[in-house]
């Protein structure tokens, strides 16, 4: 695997040189997905992504994984779950109070 060690070029947030490596992008990918990074770092990452298909693939894959996980939240309770829970709770309350 060939890593992009860093890029030189004009920063989208100013006119100084920005260098950011793949490793730095990976470290921040989760925060990037959550929009939990400052605008300068976001701009640097996006600048890197424009030139790095590997990191773009990782970002897309990780974002898709997060989306899948959120979709998995809509599961049904097992049939009779609430009734069994209430019964168990009622028995427990009777026993302990």
């Amino acid at each position, binding site marked *: 695997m060939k890593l992009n060690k860093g890029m030189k070029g004009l920063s989208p947030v100013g006119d100084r040189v920005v260098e950011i490596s793949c490793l730095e992008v*990976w*470290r921040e990918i989760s925060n990037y997905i959550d929009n939990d990074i400052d605008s300068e770092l976001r701009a640097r990452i996006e600048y890197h992504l424009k030139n790095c298909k590997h990191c773009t693939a990782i970002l897309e*894959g990780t974002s898709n*994984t997060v989306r899948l996980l959120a979709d*998995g939240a*809509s599961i049904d309770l097992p049939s009779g779950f609430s009734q069994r829970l209430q019964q168990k709770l009622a028995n427990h309350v009777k026993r302990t109070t």
Partner: protein
Amino acid sequence: MNAFFQDQSWNFYRPCVSHSRGLSMSAYGALRGKLRYVDERKPPNLVRREGFTIVVAARLFQLTNLLRTANSLTSTVTTANTDGCAAPSRREGRPDDVADLVARVKTGEHELFYELIRPCERAIFLTAMKILGNEADAEEVAQEAVLKAFTHLDQFRAEAKFSTWLIQITVNEARIKLRKDRRKLYQSIDEGIADEDGDYIPRDFADWREIPSEALERKELREALDRGLQILAPKYREVLVLRDVQRFNTQETARILGITEGVVRTRLLRARLQMRDALAPGIDASWAAGRSEYKKVRPW
């Protein structure tokens, strides 16, 4: 996406959720999936704009009506069951109501305790289910958590949300269950790999393709996701379940697990990358083709 549900955009979205009451859980899930699809295609800064949020809300109304037309309605779903625990603002009743109920149960009105539990029973079960990966174990743990919450209600302090406290107990009970089942510990993928301070290097770039949107609906992919969750080390699985399934924010997750917000972020990064790696062999065109050799989650 998380930001969408946690910031002020939720206020626009909430009336639409009321509108969708009465939908079956699967229809409701599909609805939310469509919304997320729309949401994910927009850059985060755009999601925060009021105009876009309203467009999404309008889209939700439209989808809801379509689903109703398609006879996806069921009258058996109660308001509390319409995934009310999924979004932070709907996880429990109003704070005053909750505080009042807690006070009344503490002073002897024990029969009211279930009213406290009811809005959160889905979240309790879901948390246990995703951590344990087994419906029977999850129900057992959910029951134990509720009984423990009742027994220790005196220890509940109002500075935490009741739902957060309940989920904290559930996670602890799930941990106890996992410890009892030694086999699951040996299945952990992260044992022997670098410690949590080291960098996690994502694998197999060449294999990766973006998930085709239609594949997100595929049962095989969801099953692979569940298998992937179960081979994560428990400490990563817990963070992933709380942050990405239950959508607790970083602060709440840190409180539930008794760790710092920094550790939550570190574990979340590692967990997400590991899940991505676990799914990578199946998330190329082979998912759409349904080739059986891609159905296994790759062992580490």
